[in-house]
């Protein structure tokens, strides 16, 4: 059975279902080895004030590796800030893709749903392909889809916590109902959690910290790649129903 199982977001084919972040990597060399091991084809960057002394290292790296850029609006607290940052990103790196992040406070880094929906609507109207980082709220996910987002990206748990997927049932409800791709974004700590996201029906996983701050980032990147592939295959294969009592898997003894 051979089917085209390529992820498509906003009309773009995305070769890998593992979307990577670049934050937290010790240096560009480690980042490069991790990105290659992950097999990713889409990777986030942040927008910050230019530093005359600093180079454009991460941009050059991603372009050399042939990885598509996904600029984010990290650090924005209001819809207005996020819209301006997205427009600057489009100008700076020439893409209409944006990972829309509008967080409420530093302590939780949880999305502010009111500002997020407002920004999403404005950016869709302005021609962006909007991938919003959102709460694990099926209603908000639906609203984001309704205003024209090309995907929804619910969190498993707060950014950088590595707490995995705290509300798997909510993620399942989101994937069950969504008409656009669902990307599990934030909270993944280890490979089993990436596989779980895919088994819950997510179309892709976005992670950074779990790889960049792992003991061996390159090895963890490889583990994540395998986990996403395994979870995708398992989801497609259809797991057995859970049973209360045992069911023998060998024939009964002859009487």
């Amino acid at each position: 059975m051979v089917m085209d199982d390529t992820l498509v977001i906003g009309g773009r084919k995305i070769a890998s279902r593992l979307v990577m972040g670049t934050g937290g990597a010790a240096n560009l060399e480690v980042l490069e080895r991790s990105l290659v091991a992950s097999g990713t084809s889409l990777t986030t960057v942040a927008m910050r004030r230019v530093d005359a002394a600093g180079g454009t290292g991460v941009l050059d790296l991603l372009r050399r590796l042939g990885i598509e850029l996904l600029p984010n609006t990290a650090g924005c607290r209001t819809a207005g800030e996020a819209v301006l940052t997205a427009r600057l990103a489009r100008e700076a790196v020439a893409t209409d893709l944006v990972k829309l992040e509008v967080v409420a406070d530093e302590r939780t880094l949880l999305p502010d749903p009111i500002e997020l929906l407002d920004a999403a609507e404005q950016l869709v109207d302005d021609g962006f392909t909007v991938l919003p980082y959102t709460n694990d709220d099926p209603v908000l996910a639906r609203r984001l889809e309704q205003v024209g987002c090309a995907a929804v990206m619910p969190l498993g748990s707060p950014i950088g916590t590595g707490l995995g997927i705290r509300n798997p049932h909510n993620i399942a409800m989101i994937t069950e109902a969504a008409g656009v791709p669902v990307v599990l974004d934030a909270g993944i700590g280890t490979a089993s959690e990436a596989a779980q996201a895919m088994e819950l029906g997510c179309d892709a996983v976005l992670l950074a910290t779990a790889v960049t701050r792992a003991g061996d980032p390159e090895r963890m990147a490889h583990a994540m790649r395998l986990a996403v592939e395994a979870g995708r295959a398992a989801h497609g294969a259809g797991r057995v129903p859970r049973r209360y009592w045992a069911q023998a898997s060998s024939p009964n003894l002859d009487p």
Partner: protein
Amino acid sequence: MHVWINGERRELAVGASVLDALAAIGVPRTGVAVAVDGAVVRRSDWPSTPLPAGARVEVLTAVQGG
């Protein structure tokens, strides 16, 4: 006249353009984007867009993150 470039006060000639502001801080011209007083100025408009006195110029680029 003075303007604010990425939060730092700079003296520029009256009528200086966005491009002049970039030259003043010596940043690469590729991979950056500019906003003046909260509105994006497209690359093609940099030479022809004069800065008002006291303008707040933000020059951003992509860095590791997310």
